[in-house]
């Protein structure tokens, strides 16, 4: 019966065709069978797709990972976290400082002096043998030139502007070898402590239209600040560096990149880093000078930003692209450009192909100035699910794998793989809304922290893959104060502290003060199992010492918009990820504690505020470290957060991947891949190579 035969044959045939294909598929051990080029490719996996492959427009991790290979900055950090030149081969940081001659002031040494006389006196002073005066290389009198400054008018009409016509007095320019944050404080000892403070700019300005005296004074101070120090970074570019299309990288490209970031149409998330830049000056094609409007020590680090090719993205290029694509040239900006889908940079790898949610493939750039990478291709696959990433790693179609905490014990011992681990640049914490009682008392916050056994959280929630942390700096850097001990787990001492703060156990077992029970709600976002576990552990720990704690899990956007941004919470569990730079302004300065700002716990300490600003302004690393250590101490004393842990990551790599290095006498030697101080293992990526057999390094 044909129908019957057909009904049996059809499924058998389908199954057979499907299963027979097994014999053509490569396996982990035999990755190169039928496909030898597999060995020349490095394949990695990312859980999310990139958004835009343009370093000034995107901030997500996948885009940055690709961006770091395709683009290159002027500088970056080496394996010891020191700056090293990339597109720039050297740089110099100097400064120019200005102050207005103050005719009202009487100097203790020279009496009341005019500009030229003061310049002469100061020129004499710099011949003294003293590190402060030696740092000043030139003193000049700037001619008084009138100028016009426009500022938004405050009050009801926000759009109106005020024009300020200034006829300033003479100004003195000091040229400094190095930035000196205490320059004017030291100068004040010569010129008199009030010399700068008593400078009154109001007589030198007229406003159009006329504004109130109070506003005029504010505007005048903005337009004619008594003192200014402009740090200057001068970069000397490396000759012979080209973009992937062969175009040389010049100072114009650096200036273009800066202007693109500042262009409001581009909506660059990097903009705040460059806001203190006053001007980017092209001295010659190989020299660029960055002038800052104020002291800003993170400045140098911001120039690791990938440099964009101006000839591909300037107004002419964008206009041509818009016309070619039939779009309106007036609304067509860098965000719309196809450049973000197929970027051109000057990094060690050139862009090849991007298939959304599948992969991004890069080819090596053979003309890279440091010599081409050993791998022919770099491929980032988009694999959202971590189990899938693991399976692909076992099957040999991904070369590295970030291990889940519970797998570390098993997999780091596995013979087939090499493993690396390190602590991450971020920490988890419980934050308290210090505006609300009972959290306005540091003793209560400390007691709450002491009631929680953080070590057990690390042991059982993170499977031991974490470390205690005591403050807001990255633990691997010297900004972190290693001398500070983590809070001990001691519920009895916590109760004693609470008793000191007035909280006593009532007859019902709950802590009470003035007849009110200690009760609050601890919240966090949904979807993070570790934070959910912390929520339950903290609730339980606090209940044991007699605190009534409710917990709530909220969807991320509700959590942020309704609770965190509106400052409507008692306590919350969250985490920060950090950069190496110790700038804590956004998260810890008291001016950032309004709704929608990041100091949502309302931390407010005058000394800490002062230190945060000093750290931002200090260019000397050792002094910065000293300030950071003190700031760390203050924050650890105040405990606005209960600092919990930094997590440890572990990554696996195919054992057959090694570093290949050419010795000076031309021999090739293989070395094992070793992690750097930050725990990153991809630092020497350009030297990596995959061998058919894992070499035995012990010989």
């Amino acid at each position, binding site marked *: 019966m044909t129908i*019957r035969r057909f*009904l049996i044959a059809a499924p058998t045939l389908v199954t057979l065709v499907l299963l027979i*294909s097994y014999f*053509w598929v490569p396996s982990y051990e035999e990755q190169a069978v039928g496909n030898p080029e597999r060995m020349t490719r490095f394949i990695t996996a990312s859980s999310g797709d990139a958004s835009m492959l343009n370093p000034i427009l995107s901030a997500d991790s996948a885009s940055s990972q690709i961006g770091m290979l395709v683009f290159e900055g002027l500088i970056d950090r080496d394996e010891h976290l020191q700056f090293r030149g990339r597109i720039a081969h050297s740089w110099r940081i100097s400064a120019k400082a200005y102050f207005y001659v103050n005719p009202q002031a009487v100097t203790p040494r020279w009496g009341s002096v005019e500009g030229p006389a003061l310049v002469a006196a100061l020129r004499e002073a710099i011949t003294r043998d003293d590190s402060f005066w030696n740092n000043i290389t030139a003193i000049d009198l700037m001619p008084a030139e009138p100028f016009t400054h426009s500022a938004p008018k405050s009050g009801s009409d926000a759009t109106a502007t005020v024009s300020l016509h200034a006829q300033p007095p003479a100004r003195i320019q000091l040229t400094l070898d190095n930035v000196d944050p205490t320059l004017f404080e030291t100068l004040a000892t010569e010129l008199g402590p009030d010399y700068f403070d008593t400078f009154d700019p109001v007589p030198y300005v007229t406003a159009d239209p006329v504004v109130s005296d109070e506003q005029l004074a504010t505007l005048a101070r903005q337009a004619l600040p008594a003192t200014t120090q402009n740090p200057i970074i001068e970069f000397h570019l490396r000759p012979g560096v080209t973009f992937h299309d062969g175009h040389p990288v010049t100072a114009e490209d650096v200036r273009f990149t800066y202007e693109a970031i500042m262009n409001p149409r581009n909506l660059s*998330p990097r903009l705040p880093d460059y806001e203190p830049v006053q001007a980017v000056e092209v001295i010659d094609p190989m020299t660029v000078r960055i002038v800052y409007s104020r002291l800003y020590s993170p400045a140098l680090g911001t120039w690791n930003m990938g440099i964009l090719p101006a000839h591909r993205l300037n107004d002419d290029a964008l206009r041509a692209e818009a016309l070619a694509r039939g779009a309106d040239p007036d609304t067509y900006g860098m965000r719309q450009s196809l450049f973000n889908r197929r970027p051109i940079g000057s990094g060690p790898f050139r862009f090849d192909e991007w298939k959304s*949610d599948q992969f991004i493939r890069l080819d090596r750039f053979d003309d890279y100035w440091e010599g081409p990478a050993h791998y022919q291709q770099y491929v980032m*696959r988009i694999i959202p699910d971590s189990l899938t990433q693991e*399976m692909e790693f076992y099957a040999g179609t*991904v070369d590295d794998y970030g291990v889940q905490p519970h797998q570390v014990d098993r997999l780091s011992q596995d013979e087939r793989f090499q493993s690396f681990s390190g602590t991450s640049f971020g920490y988890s914490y419980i934050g308290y809304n210090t505006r609300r009682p009972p959290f306005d008392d540091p003793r209560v916050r400390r007691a709450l922290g002491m009631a929680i056994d953080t070590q057990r959280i690390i042991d059982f929630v993170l499977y031991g893959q974490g470390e205690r942390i005591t403050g807001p700096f990255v633990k691997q850097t010297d900004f972190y104060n290693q001398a500070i001990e983590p809070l001990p787990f001691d519920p009895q001492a916590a109760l004693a502290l609470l008793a000191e703060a007035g909280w006593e156990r009532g007859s019902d077992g709950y802590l009470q003060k003035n007849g009110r029970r200690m009760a609050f709600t601890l919240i966090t976002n949904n979807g993070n199992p570790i934070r959910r576990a912390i929520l339950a552990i903290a609730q339980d720990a606090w209940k044991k010492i007699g605190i009534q704690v409710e917990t709530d899990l909220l969807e991320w956007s509700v959590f*942020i918009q309704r609770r965190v941004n509106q400052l409507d919470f008692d306590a919350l569990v969250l985490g920060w990820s950090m950069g190496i730079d110790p700038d804590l302004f956004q998260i810890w300065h008291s001016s950032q504690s309004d709704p929608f700002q990041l100091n949502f716990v309302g931390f407010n300490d005058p000394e800490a505020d002062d230190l945060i600003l000093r750290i931002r302004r200090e260019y000397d690393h050792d002094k910065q470290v000293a300030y950071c250590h003190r700031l760390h101490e203050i924050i650890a004393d105040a405990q606005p957060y209960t600092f919990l842990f930094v997590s440890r990551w572990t990554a696996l790599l195919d054992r057959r991947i090694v570093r290949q290095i050419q010795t000076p006498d031309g021999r090739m030697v293989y070395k094992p891949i070793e992690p750097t101080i930050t725990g990153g293992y991809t630092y020497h990526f350009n030297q990596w190579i995959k061998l058919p057999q894992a070499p035995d390094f012990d010989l």
Partner: protein
Amino acid sequence: MLAFLGRSLIQKIITLFFVSVVSFLIIHLAPGEPSQIDPLNPKFTPEMVERMRQEFHLDRPMHVQYALFYRDLFSGRIVSWRDNLPVLGKIWERFLNSLPLFIVGTLLTWTFSFPVGIRSAIRRDGLFDKSTTFLAYVLISIPGFFFAYILIILVVTQFHVPVIGMYSFGIDTAPPLVRFMDRIWHLVLPSVLGATGGIAVLSRYVRSQMLEIIGQDYVRTARAKGLPNDTVYYRHALRNALLPFVTMFGLILPGLIGGSVIIESIFSWPGMGRMAYEAILARDYPVILTLNFITAVLVLAGTLISDLLYMVVDPRIRL
């Protein structure tokens, strides 16, 4: 007939309008913002967030946003907020990826369900029937993602071969035969997983449909005539049992675009289902709404096709 078509079309267009309004409202009223507007990014100022909102028309009244969206959709100009690519082009690309999975999955479902269902019906309450019934209930009740993980872990740890994605990664330089076979291999697990639920359900339908027909008088008549069993079952019974399944063809149409969110996500298959899922996570409203709209159109078209097909195969039905 024409009157039915016209009436039906008008009804469906009205339904479509309401679907578009309701889905638009649900998506815009849900809390959250597109992922580009991340208020927790330390570097974002409220002014920048505001500028982005203007860029995406999120500051306009709801009805204006609605009009702007559907104007862009029908003129084909609609672009994704995530990467500024045209939405329709993106959907077409993903559709082509989902298609092989859908075809092989459907093939497996329909080729396996019929023999299994028919045999269960013929050998009612026999060992085969009992064990397939048991297996069907196991397959229906086992969560798809769990089953998928079990299968993947088994295959990968036993054979060390890749099973995820549309092909073994990095094989694009191999000879064409290797590449083709590799692609087929990668279809195996996801399509088997996609088909298991379908086979379990459909074979039950086939069984009950066959049982019903076998009990009919005309089957007894055929037997009484002395026809061989095969002829009775496969010619007289099966043909009549097939009737309801013809209409089911119309209803699998929306499955084409919906894809399978879970299977595609687990196998990182760049298909439609995964695109929809990711668009929802990123709150990429243009993609979500366009997919929603196309699905609604397909569901309505599917029901129309079912109605028409039924009329074609069963001459007793007049619309």
